[in-house]
């Protein structure tokens, strides 16, 4: 275990935890989705950083190169990016709907309105 050898892991974990913290602690729904996005991008680093070989090149085969970085994480993460933007779009559409129904995108205010409605019934 060494500091430079594990630095990428630690930054990855920091990004992941920051995303998790935003998702749990912040009440604003748009901010929550951005936190979710940070969580997702940290996973890209988690997958791709171990696949890198120092002295290697991108995995496009050519006669003049012999060391390539691992292509499999790249394939997985390409899929993850596209799925990530799909979830973001769907989440934002739901937020826009919530804003129309409740006139707010703050979680606390939404829960308050729900409780007030229940009390009326």
């Amino acid at each position, binding site marked *: 275990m060494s500091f430079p050898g594990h630095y990428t892991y630690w930054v990855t974990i920091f990004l992941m935890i920051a995303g998790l913290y935003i998702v749990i602690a912040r009440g604003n729904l748009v901010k929550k989705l951005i936190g979710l996005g940070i969580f997702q991008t940290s996973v890209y680093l988690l997958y791709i950083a171990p696949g890198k070989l120092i002295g290697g090149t*991108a*995995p496009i085969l050519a006669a003049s190169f012999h060391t390539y970085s691992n292509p499999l994480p790249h394939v997985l993460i390409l*899929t993850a*990016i596209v799925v990530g933007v799909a979830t973001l*779009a769907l989440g934002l559409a739901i937020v826009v709907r919530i804003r129309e129904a409740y006139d707010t995108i703050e979680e606390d205010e939404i829960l308050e309105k729900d409780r007030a409605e229940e009390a009326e019934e």
Partner: protein
Amino acid sequence: MTLLTMMALITVAIVVQRNLFAVVVFGSIYSFLMATALVALDAVDVAMTEASVGAGMSTVLLLGALHLTRGDEVKPLRRPLLPLFVSIVIGAALVYGTFGLPAFSDPQAAIHTHVAPRYLLDSLRETGVPNVVTSVLASYRGYDTLGETTVVFTAGAGVIALLRRRRSEKKK
């Protein structure tokens, strides 16, 4: 390493900032830094996708949503001590887990010795595509890509269903 540190700083700015427009701009900067880091890590295909989808499309989507909602985040009613505690505990557990992982760019790590060499050695002969990422994505794992397309289609259909209902309600 510098790039990763810059990314960590931008993330702190995103956590602290309460103006949502500023947060979206920071998010775009974050995605560009991520794309640059991915180029440095030899993942050129992923970097291109991240720059166009992460920094481009996501930002446009978020700005569109901000246009339809409100621009500022209110102060929370209670102090976020419990979430902070949970985050720190999970982070500490994950850092403890990294002590068992191989160091950065270790050629003997399991990731470099098992499946990848087979693709690197045989894919050019089997598929005729020099870019290994393309050959795996489109040829060996074509079904996964089909599944991915299904996910995107479902999300698109969901967005249309959610936003169309709104329009018809307005007409009433």
